[in-house]
C-alpha cells in the first residue's frame, strides 16, 4: 500500500482572529488507532470537523486513500467510506436501536430514496451483527431515545460502522461517560481497528484514558501539533507536560490501566 489511508497536510482554519488550527499535518494507516489529544480549545473538534467536511478548511489538503477530499461535503465524505461519531451524541431518537443501524445500512446500500418496502425488515441480520459487536444486541428493540449515555455512544459507533468505513472518526467518544465505560469503549475501538483493518482517529482531552490502547498519540495545543509519537514518547515529552501541568491537569505517569 503506497498512500496512507488518511493524509493531512498543512491544514489551517481560523475563526475571526483566532487561529483554531494552524498548519497541522499528519497521516494515519489502516488498522491504526491514532489519538488526538489536547486541552479544551486546542482545536481538536475544528480539526475533526474539517476531516469529514462539516467545516471547510481554509488552506491545506486532506487526502483519503489518496483522493483529495478537502472541499467535499459530509455526504460525499461518507460515501468514500468515512464514519464518524459526534461529541454530543446524535442518534435518531424516535427510532429503536436496531432501526438506527438499519438507517445506516440502508444509506450504505443507497436505498434510502426507495418509497416501497418496509425499512424495519431491511438488513436486520447485519444490523444485529453490528449491535452484537458493540454489545448492544440485547437493546435492539428499545427506543434509542431512552438509552443511557454510554449506550448511546455505542449505538453511534454501530451506526458509524454500518458504512463499513475504512476510516472512523470519533470525536471525544468517552466524554461524559462513566470511568469503566470509557476504558471499555477504548478497548472496543482498538479491537475494531485491528480486526477490521480500519483506521481510527479519536479525539480526547484526558490523557490517561488513551495510553493503554492508542498506537500513536498526537498532542494539539493552541491549534498546533506539539508532539507526535508512541504513548511512551509523548508521555516523556516536556512540552506536553508543560501544556498539561500548566493547565492544572492532574498528570499521572503511572501505568494505571484502570483510569479512575
Amino acid at each position, binding site marked *: 500500500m503506497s498512500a496512507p489511508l488518511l493524509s493531512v497536510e498543512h491544514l489551517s482554519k481560523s475563526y475571526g482572529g483566532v487561529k483554531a488550527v494552524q498548519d497541522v499535518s499528519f497521516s494515519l494507516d489502516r488498522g491504526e488507532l491514532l489519538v488526538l489529544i489536547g486541552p479544551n480549545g486546542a482545536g481538536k473538534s475544528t480539526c475533526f470537523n474539517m476531516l469529514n467536511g462539516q467545516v471547510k478548511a481554509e488552506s491545506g489538503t486532506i487526502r483519503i486513500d489518496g483522493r483529495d477530499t478537502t472541499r467535499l461535503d459530509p455526504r460525499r465524505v461518507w460515501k468514500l467510506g468515512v464514519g464518524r461519531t459526534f461529541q454530543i451524541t446524535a442518534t435518531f431518537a*424516535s427510532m429503536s436501536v436496531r432501526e438506527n443501524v438499519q438507517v445506516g445500512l440502508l444509506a450504505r446500500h443507497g436505498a434510502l430514496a426507495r*418509497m416501497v418496502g418496509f425499512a424495519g425488515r*431491511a438488513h436486520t441480520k447485519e444490523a444485529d451483527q453490528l449491535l452484537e459487536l458493540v454489545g448492544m444486541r440485547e437493546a435492539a428493540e428499545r427506543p434509542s431515545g431512552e438509552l443511557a*449515555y454510554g449506550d448511546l455512544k455505542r449505538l453511534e459507533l454501530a451506526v458509524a460502522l454500518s458504512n463499513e468505513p475504512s476510516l472512523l472518526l470519533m470525536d471525544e467518544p468517552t466524554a461524559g461517560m462513566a470511568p469503566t465505560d470509557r476504558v471499555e469503549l477504548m478497548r472496543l475501538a482498538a479491537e475494531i481497528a485491528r480486526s477490521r483493518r480500519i483506521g481510527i482517529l479519536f479525539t480526547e482531552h484526558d490523557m490517561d484514558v488513551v495510553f493503554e490502547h492508542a498506537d500513536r498519540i498526537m498532542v494539539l495545543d493552541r491549534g498546533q501539533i506539539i508532539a507526535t509519537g508512541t504513548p511512551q514518547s509523548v508521555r516523556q515529552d516536556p512540552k506536553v507536560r508543560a501544556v498539561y501541568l500548566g493547565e492544572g491537569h492532574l498528570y499521572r505517569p503511572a501505568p494505571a490501566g484502570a483510569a479512575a
Partner: protein
Amino acid sequence: MDFLAVQFLTGLAGASSLFLVASGLSIIFGVTRIVNFAHGAFYMLGAYIAYSLTERWSGALGFWGGLIAAALAVAVIGALVEIVLLRRIYRAPELFQLLATFGVTLVVQDLSVIIWGPEDLVGRRAPGFRHSVEILGQSVPSYDLLLIALGPLVLASIWLLFHRTRFGVLVRAATQDRDMVAALGVNQRWLFTGVFALGVFLAALGGALQLPRDAVSHTMDLRIIVEVFVVVVIGGLGSVGGAYLAALLVSELNAFGILIMPTISLVVVFLVMAIVLVVRPHGLFGKPEGPPRATPNALIRPWRPFSRNEQIAVAIAVLAAALLPLVAGSYVLSVGTEIFIVALFAASLQLIMSAGGIASFGHAAYFGLGAYGAALAAKSLALPFPAALAAGVALGAAGAAIFGWFCVRLSGVYFAMLTLAFAQIAWSIAFQWTSVTGGDNGLLGIWPPSWAANPAVFYWIALGLAVFGVAAIRAITFSPFGYALRAVRDSALRAESIGIGRRGVQWTAFVVAGAFAALAGAMFAYLKGSVFPDNLGIPLSVDGLVMVLLGGVETVSGAVVGAIVYRALSIVLMSQTDYSKLVLGLFIVTLVVAFPRGIVGSLQGLVPRLRGRAAAPMGHTALRPAE
C-alpha cells in the same frame, strides 16, 4: 416621471404601518421566540378601537389622543392574552404557538363583527392633515407625508428604547440568550409580558394610523399578516432595522408592482422574496435559528405498522364505511364523501408534519392547485374525469415542487411563514387572474361523468382513493424513504454524516404530500361541482393543521381520525351557530393548551397505563445532554 415620484411617496407612506406591525412581530419573536399570528388581529383591533374613540368619544382625547389610547388599550388586551394563553405554551413547538395565536385571530374576527358590525367603517381625516400638497405638479395627501416621517421616527424611538433604557437592555439581552437572562435573576415572566405588550402596541398603532387613509374592515388582519410575514422573512426575524428596510422594499414593490403587473402584483413581491431567500436564507439581517425545540413530553414510542388485529379492525371500519350507501341518503353520502376527501388531505399534511417534522401553514395551496388543475383540465381541455384528476395531481405536485424548493431551504418557523406566504400568493393568483380562474366567481360546472355521478358511486370512488392514499402514505412512512425523512427530523447532523441530505429528502416529501393533497383537491372540485379561491385559502390550511393536531402529531395517521371528528363537528357547528369562527378559535386554543397530543396520541398513551404496563415513558429530552 412625476407620476412615478408620487407613486414612490405612496409606497413610502404605506411602509410606515407595515413597519410598525412588522417591528412589533420581530421584537416579540426576538425575545419570546413566538411568531404571533394574532399580530394582524391586534392591528385590526387598533383600527377599530381608534375608530370608536375618534368618532364617539373624540371630545376627551382629541383625534391624536384617541389613536394613542386605542393602541394602549390593545396593548393591554395583548398583555392579557400573553398572561392567560401564551405563558402556558412557551416551551411548546412553534406549530402550537402559531396555531394558538391563529385561534386568537379567529376569535377576534368574530368578536369584531359582533361589536362593530359587518360593514366597512370609514374613519375621519386627521385634523390638520385633511388636504393635499402639490409635489411636482401632482397632489399628495399631506397625511402621507406625515406617515413617511413617522417611520424613521418610530425606528429611532425603538433604537433609543433598546439602547438607553434598562428595559431595552434586558430585551436585547433576552433576544441573545433568554436562559442566561433568566439565570441572572431577571423576572422573565414580566419581561415577556412587557415585550409582548410593546409589540402589540406597535401593531395597534400601525392599525390606528391607517384610519384616515383606509376603511376599517374585517379582512385587514389576514391581509396585513401575510405582508408582515413577507417583510420579516425578507428583513430577518428579530431585526428591527431589517423590518424597516424590508417594509420599504415591499411597499415600493407593491406600489410599482401594480404598474408592471396590474393583475398579479403580488408576484413581484414574491420574486424578490425568492431572490433574497436564495442569497440570504435568514433574511437580510436575520441570524440562523438555533436547532428547533424537541417535541415536549414526547412519548418516544417507535412507530410500528399495524399489527394483524389492527389490520382487521381497519378492514372492518373500511367495510362498514363501504356499506353506508345501502342505508344512507344522498346528503349523508355527500358529507361522507367530503370527510374522506378531507381525511386524505389531512393525511398528506401529516406525512411532512409528523414524519418530516416540518409544519406547513400553506398546505391548502396544493389542495387548491389540485382542484383548479382538475377543473381547468375538465373545462378548457375537456379531459375526461380520471385524466382531469391526474391533471390536478400534476399541477399540485408541480406547485409543491416549485414552492417547496424554496421552503426546504428554511426550517422551523421560517418554513411555516414561507409556506403560508406561498399559499397566499397562490390564493391571490387564483383571485386576481380572472381570465383563467374566474377570480371570485370561481369555475363552475365541474361534474363527474354519468357513470360516476350517482352519489353512492362517487362516494365509493372517494372512499377508494382515500384508502389508497392513506395506505400509500403509511407505506411511504415505513419505507426506507420514510426512515430517511424521520432521520433528518431527529438529527440533521447525524443524517448528513451518514449521507442523507436534509433538503433533498424534505423536498421530495413535500412534493409527495403536495401530490396527495392535490388528489384530494381534485376530488373536492368534482364533489362540489365548482372551485373557488377559498379552496387554497389560509383557513383551509389551518383546518388541516387542526386535524393533524386533533388526531395527534406524534402518530402515523391519527390525522384521519382527527379529520373525521373535526369535519363532522364543524358541519354540526356550522348549522348551530352564526359565530363559527369564535367557536373554532376557542376550540383551537383549548386543543393546543389542554390536549397537545391529540385524540389518537392520548388514546395510545392511555392503553399501556390501563393495562398496568409501565412502558417506560421517558421523554428523550431529559436524557439528552444539554445542547
